[in-house]
């Protein structure tokens, strides 16, 4: 373990650690463009210059392994002059079109100029002209003039996706980032190059020119696109409906979690959130006519009390949180309940994308509401073969064995076909649909209650590796829309089975007390990076950070 002194502070780091990493451990930030912890070291941008004692020249901190007794200065005249000169070179041909650049406000050229530059520009020559709006693929636009040739995106396509679409061609001030002639950047992870671009060279087509970044709010959450549960930050606008065509969700950025998704996110997850702002259910309906929550919950509670438990069915969903599934299990005790429905497995790969497109199938298994995995890869984590699956409940409903059937989010027509769905609607006394968006089942249900999208509520999902992750609550549901957990709590009250809990946090506490797999877990211990359930195969490389 070499000892190194950086800006007067001593730190012991494993052999092979670079100066930039050692400085990070001390909380000292060294500027960087080409360095990215998830990629190989290029050492070409030179902005991370530091002064190393007994070295005649400045050294790049990203590519310099520490040695025992090394003394590094990241401040001081030599290092600061060096960085300033590098920045001046990088900006020599930069178009300075910040007023129309989407990166403006989160651009490391701007940030580092203000922090480390502040020189008077001396470049009076004509700047080199290059292409300003090159469409690289379905999601990514390139501005060659803004590019500083750090090669992060090139290394991403080389090392992470191994697709090799991008390269740096030509030489000197003519050097440019470009796609291989005739190629297109459309691999399943293509938009990550936008996230890692430190400048405005690569921008997202979807959010381009929609919202200046300083109008964006950000909240941490988890992707619901598949059972991997990649960590992400949701960027949204609430108070400026004239921006982003009135939609709240503007864009999604991956949030670093070394145990789940590292720094990355797939394009399918990133662009799979249109439904949150489109085609939403906004009012309670009884047979298609507008009604009230009060009337709906009173009618459902009455029907539940009047029916024998065995004649009540719930087709829950692996899109619901653990808290909500737990409430369903407790409130509908004795009824026919399942969160599993027959679904075709979706696309998957050997990186992040899982074929199970539900975020909480593992949670449903642990709560005994879904069967075990076929071809189990999680070490037999939960799931009981005795759980009826949604198909069995639908069959019972179809043959008139149920008085009440509550469907959470699913489209019966899509799952079982139009004919079966109509028979179910005819043969069940009371068909309740709760969900976020319009679908064919909405037409058939007697009661339709609009519930919150997962971004609009707090709760937890358990990912395919058995990691409990909190989804937070990014923004409130639209007016008239309620979170499933709150609907369930009120139903419990009205049907004479009141619960002690009043919010997701306390529901989770009750769940953790009741279920061994969750024992000892709290929202605090789950933190922002999640925590593995007992007996899970989930990796534990990082310590969970407590939530503020």
């Amino acid at each position: 373990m070499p000892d190194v002194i950086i800006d007067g502070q001593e730190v012991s780091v494993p052999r092979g650690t670079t100066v930039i990493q050692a400085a990070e451990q001390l909380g000292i930030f060294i500027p960087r463009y080409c360095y990215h912890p998830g990629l190989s070291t290029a050492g070409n941008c030179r902005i991370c210059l530091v002064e190393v004692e007994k070295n005649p020249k400045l050294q790049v901190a990203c590519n310099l392994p520490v040695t025992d007794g090394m003394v590094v200065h990241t401040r001081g005249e030599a290092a600061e002059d060096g960085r300033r000169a590098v920045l001046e070179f990088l900006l020599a041909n930069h178009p300075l079109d910040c007023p129309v650049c989407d990166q403006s406000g989160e651009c490391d050229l701007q940030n580092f100029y203000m922090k480390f530059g502040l020189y008077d520009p001396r470049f009076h020559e004509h700047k080199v002209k290059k292409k300003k709006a090159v469409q690289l693929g379905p999601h990514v636009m390139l501005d060659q003039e803004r590019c500083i040739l750090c090669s992060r995106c090139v290394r991403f396509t080389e090392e992470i996706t191994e697709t090799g679409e991008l390269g740096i061609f030509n030489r000197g001030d003519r050097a440019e980032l470009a796609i291989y002639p005739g190629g297109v950047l459309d691999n399943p992870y293509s938009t990550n190059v936008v996230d890692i671009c430190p400048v405005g060279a690569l921008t997202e087509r979807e959010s381009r020119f929609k919202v200046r970044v300083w109008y964006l709010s950000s909240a941490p959450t988890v992707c619901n696109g598949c059972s991997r549960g990649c960590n992400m930050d949701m960027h949204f606008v609430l108070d400026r409906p004239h921006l982003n065509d009135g939609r709240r969700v503007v864009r999604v950025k991956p949030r670093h979690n070394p145990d789940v998704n590292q720094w990355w996110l797939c394009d399918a997850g990133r662009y799979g959130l249109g439904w949150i702002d489109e085609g939403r259910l906004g009012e309670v309906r009884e047979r298609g006519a507008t009604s009230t929550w009060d009337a709906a919950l009173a009618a459902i509670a009455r029907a539940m009390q009047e029916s024998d438990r065995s004649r009540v069915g719930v087709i829950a969903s692996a899109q619901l949180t653990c808290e909500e599934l737990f409430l369903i299990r407790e409130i509908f005790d004795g009824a026919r309940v399942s969160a599993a429905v027959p679904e075709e497995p979706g696309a998957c790969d050997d990186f992040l994308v899982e074929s199970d497109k539900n975020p909480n199938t593992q949670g449903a298994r642990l709560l005994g509401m879904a069967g075990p995995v076929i071809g189990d890869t999680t070490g037999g984590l939960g799931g009981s073969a005795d759980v009826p699956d949604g198909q069995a409940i639908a069959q019972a409903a179809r043959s008139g064995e149920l008085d009440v059937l509550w469907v959470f989010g699913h489209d019966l027509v899509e799952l079982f076909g139009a004919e079966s769905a109509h028979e179910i609607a005819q043969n069940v006394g009371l068909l309740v649909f709760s969900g976020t968006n319009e679908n064919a089942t909405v037409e058939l249900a007697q009661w339709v209650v609009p519930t919150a999208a997962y971004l609009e509520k707090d709760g937890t999902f358990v990912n395919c590796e058995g990691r409990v992750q909190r989804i937070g609550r990014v923004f409130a549901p639209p007016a008239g829309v309620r979170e499933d957990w709150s609907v369930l709590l009120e139903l419990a009250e009205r049907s004479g089975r009141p619960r002690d809990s009043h919010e997701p946090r306390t529901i989770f506490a009750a769940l953790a007390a009741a279920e061994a797999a969750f024992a000892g877990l709290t929202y605090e211990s789950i933190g922002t990076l999640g925590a593995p359930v007992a007996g899970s195969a989930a990796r534990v490389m990082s310590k969970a950070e407590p939530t503020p």
Partner: protein
Amino acid sequence: MALPDELLAELDELILNYPDRRAGLIPALHRCQEELGGWLSPEILEDCAEYFDMEPVEVYGVASFYPMFHLKPVGKHVVGVCRNVSCELRGASDITSRVCRVTGAQAPGRNSTDMRFYVEHLECQGACADAPMIVVDGVYHENLEPDDVDTILGELS
């Protein structure tokens, strides 16, 4: 694979000179350009990428970096005019104009319309002592007056 077998055999020999296979890429590209029509077509670049187990995009990056690799078809004879300090001071601009006039190429970097000539600018070729100079199909011609250009190019087939 568009690379002929003899060339591949030669490359197999060539890469033995390097500790790392891919280090042989540049000499290999030179040989391909010499043997296969004077320029590197996308097919040749892709074949080289396959041969060196690299992504085509990397090979294209290397080939586009060096001006001595031609990525578009060139005329039968390649005429390069040095334009660095010594040659420029001793009349390289006049030589360039004369080369363009004699060959019919519009400017350096262009082919003549009959595709007999490709004219290009060169950086220093190390012949400063006898500036100005041109390189015709790899052969140096030094200490030139513009009229010499007519003679040199006139003798070509």
